[in-house]
């Protein structure tokens, strides 16, 4: 019954996450927007699991585990970048620029 509305909401949330990634320059905020997109996808999985079986919920479980690992490693990388250049603004990180 809630399948249609849930899919619409997760579409909107995913688009907001994409907009955040495109509009921000702070690496940590961009990272948070990626988490928002993962959450939107989790909502889709759970909405579809209602009728298509439990596998969707199992997938959400794995997405959460991968998101936790990704957050730990990603934030460690951001820390390392900050230590190198004293900034997390992606505009000022130009190591690959000729």
């Amino acid at each position, binding site marked *: 019954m*809630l*399948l249609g509305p849930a899919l619409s909401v997760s579409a909107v949330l995913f688009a907001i996450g994409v907009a955040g990634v495109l509009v921000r320059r702070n690496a940590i905020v961009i990272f948070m927007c990626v988490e928002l997109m993962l959450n939107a996808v989790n909502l889709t999985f759970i909405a579809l699991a209602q009728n298509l079986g439990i596998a969707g919920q199992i997938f959400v479980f794995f997405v959460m585990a991968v998101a936790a690992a990704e957050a730990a490693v990603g934030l460690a990388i951001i820390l390392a970048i900050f230590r190198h250049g004293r900034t997390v603004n992606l505009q000022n990180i130009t190591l690959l620029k000729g």
Partner: protein
Amino acid sequence: MPGTLLLFWTFAGLAVTSAALCITRRNPLASALWLVVTMFQIAALFVLLDAQFLAVLQVLVYAGAIMVLFLFVIMLLNLGRGGPSDIRGPAGVAVATLLAGALGVQLFIVARSAPSPGPGAGPLALAEQAEGMVGVVARPLFTTYLVPFEITSVLLLAAIVGAVVLAKRQL
């Protein structure tokens, strides 16, 4: 059941509003806290979609563990203070809105084409009544999906080692 639908749209509206606030706040600390609000609303949506166990996990793992990690790093790097805004200029905002809007419309069209379920409780709700809300997730996790589950533990171990190696000044 219009009551469920009303609750659903309330939580959905709050989730979308707080997500929009999350990407528009200048202060990264405020962004992180609005994202925590969004995750709580999504957990509420999970409950309405018969995924109570994952709603609890959402609050514990996402809102609890992952966002605390984000807040720690923001405070460690002292980013909570004012400073120049990291939001792109008007042209950047326009392009981002256009692209994200186009993607949103596309996803919306795909979502509309999803098969609509019949009336009454779905198969999952019936299984939850029979096995309990944890049992219905736990049984396939430890039978059909046992190998991926064990590999996840290796992944988490690798993440721990990787985070320590990356964050340490000198190994």
